[in-house]
């Protein structure tokens, strides 16, 4: 019997739909943590992933920041890679065709330093789109470049203006990746919704710092960097919850996820999909481990579809009444 395990329990439905695009499960790998697929392929059956969000691509290649780019911190790490990437021309001539060979969805992450550059990169990819390219994730939240997207990501008007501009250039999924480095994520979520984004993804890294106490120098070459890993999970979860209350479009949860249980928390808080980031650096197959664990969790808990978990947070009436 199709879909029924030997123990009699039906396999849970892991599929997720984002505006007409069906993903085989809710687990994506995050931009910058999986390269362009080829590097991790040896260690990970990438067709078991819902999709790959590719390393940020800009109009011209970027060499990235000088060392040191990575510092380990408590249950996490600081990075200052600086958007090192091959540029959009190599991306469409080499990376997209390579990724087209796999039965998984591709979301192209775009980073830029001006409205025009964002649009030009997106339109160039549109012209060379491959069949499994289903959408774009717009990085307006990289903290590690001077002329980067964070100037968009911390300004509600610019976020809305950029989203409107890009919306006019594509019918594919348009996902805006938000930063936690703002007082409240709610107005940004609402701006994306107003401007026609299909979804938002959050959070990008938090600005962090590490100092060598003997030399008094910052450990990263850019002084501050982006904090990621399990250390930021509670913050990410709270931001997903706040964004869920603020807007009606789908949310992709990101931030320190290493396990199926972490994923379930994000789904309950209101995300309908997640991205695995830093965990890929430790286990390149972390995404498929999480997807497998999630399927097992659903089956054990007798939950028939992963969608049943989404936005299922229960806050007791007295807490709500008290204003929480």
């Amino acid at each position: 019997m199709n879909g029924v395990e030997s123990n009699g329990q039906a396999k849970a439905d892991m599929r997720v739909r984002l505006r007409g695009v069906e993903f085989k499960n809710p687990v994506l790998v995050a931009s910058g943590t999986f390269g362009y697929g080829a590097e991790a392929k040896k260690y990970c059956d990438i067709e078991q992933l819902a999709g790959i969000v590719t390393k940020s691509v800009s109009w011209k290649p970027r060499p990235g920041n000088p060392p040191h780019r990575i510092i380990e911190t408590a249950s996490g790490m600081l990075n200052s890679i600086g958007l090192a990437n091959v540029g959009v021309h190599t991306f469409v001539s080499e990376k997209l065709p390579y990724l087209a060979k796999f039965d998984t969805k591709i979301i192209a992450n775009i980073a830029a330093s001006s409205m025009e550059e964002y649009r030009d990169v997106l339109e160039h990819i549109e012209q060379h789109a491959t069949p499994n390219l289903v959408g774009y994730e717009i990085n307006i939240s990289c903290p590690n470049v001077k002329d980067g997207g964070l100037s968009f990501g911390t300004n509600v008007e610019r976020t809305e203006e950029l989203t409107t501009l890009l919306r006019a250039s594509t019918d594919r999924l348009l996902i805006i990746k938000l930063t936690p480095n703002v007082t409240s994520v709610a107005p940004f979520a609402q701006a994306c919704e107003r401007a026609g984004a299909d979804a938002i993804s959050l959070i990008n890294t938090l600005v962090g710092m590490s100092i060598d106490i003997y030399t008094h120098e910052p450990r990263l070459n850019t002084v501050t960097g982006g904090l990621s890993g399990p250390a930021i999970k509670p913050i990410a979860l709270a931001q997903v919850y706040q964004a869920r209350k603020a807007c009606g479009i789908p949310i992709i949860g990101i931030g320190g996820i290493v396990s199926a249980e972490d994923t379930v928390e994000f789904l309950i808080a209101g995300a309908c999909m997640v991205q695995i980031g830093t965990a890929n650096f430790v286990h390149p197959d972390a995404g498929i481990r999480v997807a497998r664990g999630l399927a097992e969790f659903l089956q054990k808990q007798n939950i028939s579809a992963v969608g049943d978990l989404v936005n299922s947070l229960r806050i007791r009436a007295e807490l709500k009444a008290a204003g929480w």
Partner: protein
Amino acid sequence: MLAPGLVTLRFHNPKVARETIAGQFVNVLPKAGAIDPMLRRPFSVYNTDGDEAEIIIQAHGRGTNILADTAEGEMLDVLGPLGNPWNYKSGDFKTAVLVIGGVGVASMLLLTRALVKEGLPVQSYYGARTKDLLALQDLTNLHVATDDGSEGFHGSVINMLRKDLEARKIEQPKLFVCGPTGMMRAAAVLAAEYGIPCEVSLETEMACGIGICQGCPVPTDDTTFQKTGKRFRLVCMDGPSFSAETITI
């Protein structure tokens, strides 16, 4: 224990033990299954024997302290072998000169074996802060230097090697260097001075070890490579060993 300050970890891993070529490394989690410390640590494969492999641990931080205390029978989470081997078949030398600083000895045992198998003479110049940090086993034609004079030449291994190069004692040498950054830089300068080939094996902070995090760049002077628009090579994928003149250490 290899020396009072160095311990070896021996683990069963047929893939690593059978496939590693001298100079490659493994990326090891301090504690399998833990999320703190979270990242793997890179270690040269020191020795292989049947289905077992060994790495050398010099405890000097959170991760290496945990690894140095690994109990017998505990599971290790090991990814590898990773990176490129030493280029010991470059054909541009008659004598392989191993220039070793401290725990850099970890990549030299397999190299010595490979060179001997190729029928190439080996001279080993090995320096450490003090004699307790010397792992002298299985090195060939050994010249030892210690910073404190507790063993062998009193001073730096580079100065010891310089004397022998000046005296033209070594026939058509190529330097294979692994040690602290300052010592590798000095070795590269020395090699350039004498116009001899020099390969250095770098150690940097690294997260993934397989080229996805882009966290381990080394500035490159290689103009052919720069034509691709890149200014950095990755230690994990493009190295860890590099021809010294192609990079800025």
